[in-house]
């Protein structure tokens, strides 16, 4: 019941790779990493959720907060996710219309480069 967070940079895009569970306990760690990336000047961010086993509204709240933060710098947050149990919570809350969701990191990177 923990959350591993790795981050890397590809062509100026900040990429966060999550593994584990995002809930009220672990969401602050994600929030902190997102704030760090923005402070480093990375306003286009991809968050890879492929290895996330569980996410509730605590995680969604952090993602929405992060999006507000990068949007104030004309940035964006894209998600990588193909897992039905995680996608479902984005559908229920209507956040599929807020976050671009891709099936692979490469797809997300190419979309950002093309925009």
């Amino acid at each position, binding site marked *: *019941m923990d959350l591993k967070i790795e981050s890397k940079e590809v062509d100026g895009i900040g990429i966060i790779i999550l593994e584990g*569970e995002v*809930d*009220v*306990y672990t969401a602050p760690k994600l929030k902190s990493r997102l704030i760090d990336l923005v402070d480093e000047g990375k306003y286009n961010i991809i968050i890879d959720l492929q290895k996330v086993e*569980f996410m*509730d*509204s*605590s995680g*969604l*709240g952090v993602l929405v907060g992060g999006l507000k933060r990068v949007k104030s710098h004309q940035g964006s947050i894209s998600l990588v996710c193909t897992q*039905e*149990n995680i996608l*479902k*919570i984005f559908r*229920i*809350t*209507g956040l599929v219309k807020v976050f671009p969701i891709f099936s692979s990191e490469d797809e997300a990177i190419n979309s950002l480069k093309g925009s």
Partner: protein
Amino acid sequence: MNTLSQPVSIEIPAKPEYAGIARLIVAGFAGLLGFDSETTEDIKIAVSEACTNAIMQLHKQSRSEDMVVGISAYTNDDNLVIDVEYPAKGIPHVEKPDSESQEKDLVMSILTSIMDEVDTITAQNQGVILRLVKKIPKH
């Protein structure tokens, strides 16, 4: 339909690190009742949302350190019922202030989408119970 005649009840400290324990225990209970894995995942989310609400409410009152959140899972007719209870003396209700209405809407939209019934009840000891109900599948 599988039945479990006795409830499972636990108390967790009102701290974020304990929310995961509650959802795992209730998921185990739901699994024994024959819920499929997708619905069990939904139930885990609902329990997590309810526990998070309780923990955050107590935290706002600076009362979380010495408080516990009670979680009971039981069957009633053909329903799984999950009660998440926390002491709320002096706390008006589970309603959150207007500034957090967006967050509250998010939680309620999740709960009402994945559970069959969601109710807020005042407990006998003046606590608050968030009751989650899911129909048990017939096999």
